[in-house]
């Protein structure tokens, strides 16, 4: 009975996920402490050198870095288990509150980017595969090369500068607006960064689509479908694409999980207060609780996306379900 339970793929996945999260927690904790400089140095800069020994002792107690490392780790981990993500040492804001503000930003950006990437990637991927070796194939391949080759920071900064200088259009210079506060402004602020991200993420999706599509279109059932008189278009989009979709779903899931980790560079350039910037700033200021808990949240999101991808497999492909 117990053995059977352990053989259940769902439970195995959950156990693996928990193991991953624990590993991430330990790793982040150690890496943060291995970085040069501590909170005192981050807060005071070179003025830290001017602190008297008494002042330094007081600060170490304030930041809790006078405790042995394992005490620090378990007090953080213990709080996590009670649902307390900790408090930022600057601003006294709870990490939970900060994340409630920044996560929706990153989630929306990732979602928009992945939609754009899917439209470009799958669209051009199918067109390229259907016309292998012809102009459309060449066009698709060029788009994917551009997406891979042009760095997002360059494309993003260039678009931002040109739009602001020539058109006076710079919604990202205004304070960030949540979609429920001002949907139009939010859309204006999001669309360019999402397009830049989507364009770069489209490349791997396009390549995967093309390869998988070519592979499936050689199969017998395609010829059968054509022989039965189904139109080329219908065969292409309904029959081949559906059967070619597993690797595309995998690739999309991976890219989506990656985007949820926060697109730091794009968030910086376009002043979007997302998860990536939350982590970056916290690393710079050695705000340990914020980095640790936020990275853990990102890891959790990644695990969840992977899980969702697996479930989607089962829905798309009856063979996976049957296993």
């Amino acid at each position: 009975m117990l053995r059977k339970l352990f053989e259940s793929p769902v439970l195995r996945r959950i156990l693996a996920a928990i193991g991953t999260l624990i590993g991430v927690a330990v790793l982040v904790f150690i890496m943060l402490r291995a970085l040069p400089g501590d909170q005192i140095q981050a807060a005071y800069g070179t003025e830290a050198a001017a602190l008297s020994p008494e002042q330094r002792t007081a600060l170490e107690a304030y930041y809790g870095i006078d405790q042995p490392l394992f005490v620090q780790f378990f007090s953080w981990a213990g709080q996590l288990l009670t649902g307390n993500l900790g408090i930022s040492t600057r601003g006294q804001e709870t990490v939970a509150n900060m994340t409630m503000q920044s996560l929706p930003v990153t989630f929306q950006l990732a979602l928009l980017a992945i939609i754009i990437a899917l439209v470009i990637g799958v669209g051009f991927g199918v067109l390229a595969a259907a016309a292998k070796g012809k102009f459309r194939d060449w066009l698709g391949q060029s788009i994917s090369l551009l997406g891979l080759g042009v760095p997002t920071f360059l494309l993003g900064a260039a678009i931002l500068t040109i739009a602001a200088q020539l058109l006076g259009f710079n919604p990202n210079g205004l304070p960030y607006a949540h979609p429920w506060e001002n949907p139009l402004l939010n859309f204006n602020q999001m669309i360019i960064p999402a397009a830049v991200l989507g364009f770069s993420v489209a490349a791997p999706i396009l390549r995967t689509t093309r390869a998988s599509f070519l592979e499936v279109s050689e199969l017998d059932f395609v010829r059968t479908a054509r022989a039965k008189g189904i139109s080329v278009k219908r065969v292409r989009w309904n029959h081949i694409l559906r059967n070619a979709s597993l690797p595309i779903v995998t690739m999309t899931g991976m890219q989506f999980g990656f985007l949820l980790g926060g697109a730091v560079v794009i968030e910086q350039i376009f002043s979007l207060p997302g998860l990536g910037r939350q982590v970056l700033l916290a690393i710079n200021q050695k705000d340990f609780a914020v980095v640790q808990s936020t990275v853990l949240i990102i890891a959790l999101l990644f695990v969840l996306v992977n899980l969702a991808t697996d479930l989607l497999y089962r829905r798309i492909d009856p063979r996976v379900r049957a296993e």
Partner: protein
Amino acid sequence: MKAKRQRRLPKLVAAIGVSALALTGCAEGVTTDEQTGGDGAAEQNLVIGVTTDINSLNPWTATQYQAVDVLTQMYGSLVEFDAELNPGPGLAESWEVSEDGLTVTFKLREGVTFSDGSEFDAEDVIASYETIQDPETAAVSAANLASIDAMEATDPHTLEMTLTQPDAALFSKLSSLGTAIMPSDVDLADVENNPVGTGGFTLQDRSPNQSVTLAANPDYWYGAPALETIEFRVIPDQSAVVSALQAGNVQMAVFDDATVASTVGGEITVEETARLDMHVLQLNSEREPMNDVNVRLAISCAIDREGVLESAAMGEGEVIGPITSPSFKSDPTDRPCPERDVEQAKQYLADAGYEDGLSLKMIAMQDGYSTAIAEAQTIQSQLAEAGIEVELEPLESGTYVDRWIATDFDMAVALNGASADPDATYGRYFTSTGNLNDVAAFSTDELDALFLEGRSESDPEARKEIYAEISGYLEDQAPWIWLFTGYNYTAMAPQVQGFEPLVSGSLLGLRDASIG
């Protein structure tokens, strides 16, 4: 099943379309409001673009530039600087120093209130200074108050201060944000949420990583500011700040990078002000071979400061001697080699017994300020011509600061802060009891005596002579090589009026600014 799904699809698309239309319709009005608010055409709302969020609202522990800029608007100190950085009245209207220089009597301004409504008096000053001196507070200005022995409120608006030794630099030190006055009953644990000060503005709103908004204090003793609000908006990327200026989203920004400032253009004006902080090459005089003054002088003579300024900062700045504050400024040609002199440098090296040259290591910060690496590389090639081989170690800022604090370097390219009074700038570095003396790695009895003399002298002219002497002594001993100071670039939209940037870099002038 399939048929059903297909039928539903067009409806869904239609629904999305309609709701998008609806959103656009209702959002338009909001955007228009937003834009007039952002442009501030009719209203006195100033938006300043900054590249990073402030890290503290506590004036006593704040050192970050951005935090200092914001907190200067919210808090007040006993003393304020005039345009030449001479100490003048602030929360103290006037002061008198006794004959022996050991008693200072401050006459405090009456009718000043804190932002929580409570009255400002001498007890608040005493409580603030005592808290700053308490090591538990970990205040950066504790050392500035070291000469204070006792304080007494002879009446609510008169403060008598007894000093352990005369301190002519005291008034300059009491002007810093680090000695700002908070109410005597302040709860330090709550300052990050409820800052209480006497400044021209109060905290209205703070959203982490996005913005800090201040509202005018109508009861400000200086007179209510013309601006109703100031928003410090975080735009992390410097070129994005430029874009925001051009698009009119922000009306003001301060840059320290000439390259970025030069891209602004348009109708935005950019004003240059000399900065006090000094680009220097620190030598570790406690290590071989820099413990020999001839080696240090060789380095000093081998460096072409104009060349460093030219290549690292496009010539945007001034070559300096040790003291950069306007009233005490050193003559940059008053040094052993007024011009670069490679032959003289080789002579000094020979005198030190290194006629065949020597090799040294130099650290520089990669990511702290834009000019460091270029400075380091120019110095490296200049020293090579005099036979000094330099190995450059570019370091990430955290590692750099670690090494700097531990004085773990032969030479360090550094950007060191400076104050209006040379005693406040150098007393901590170059006197044997200074709290940064370990890092400066240099002190002598003569210097100790000179600094003591400078503190004890109350006549301003006589003080200038003493610091000129200190400046000459430092050049002759060359514990550091003084290179140049850069500029601040204050970019302002044409509608911003009345703001004067100060040499200290202070944004206190925002209390005189308005939008026209």
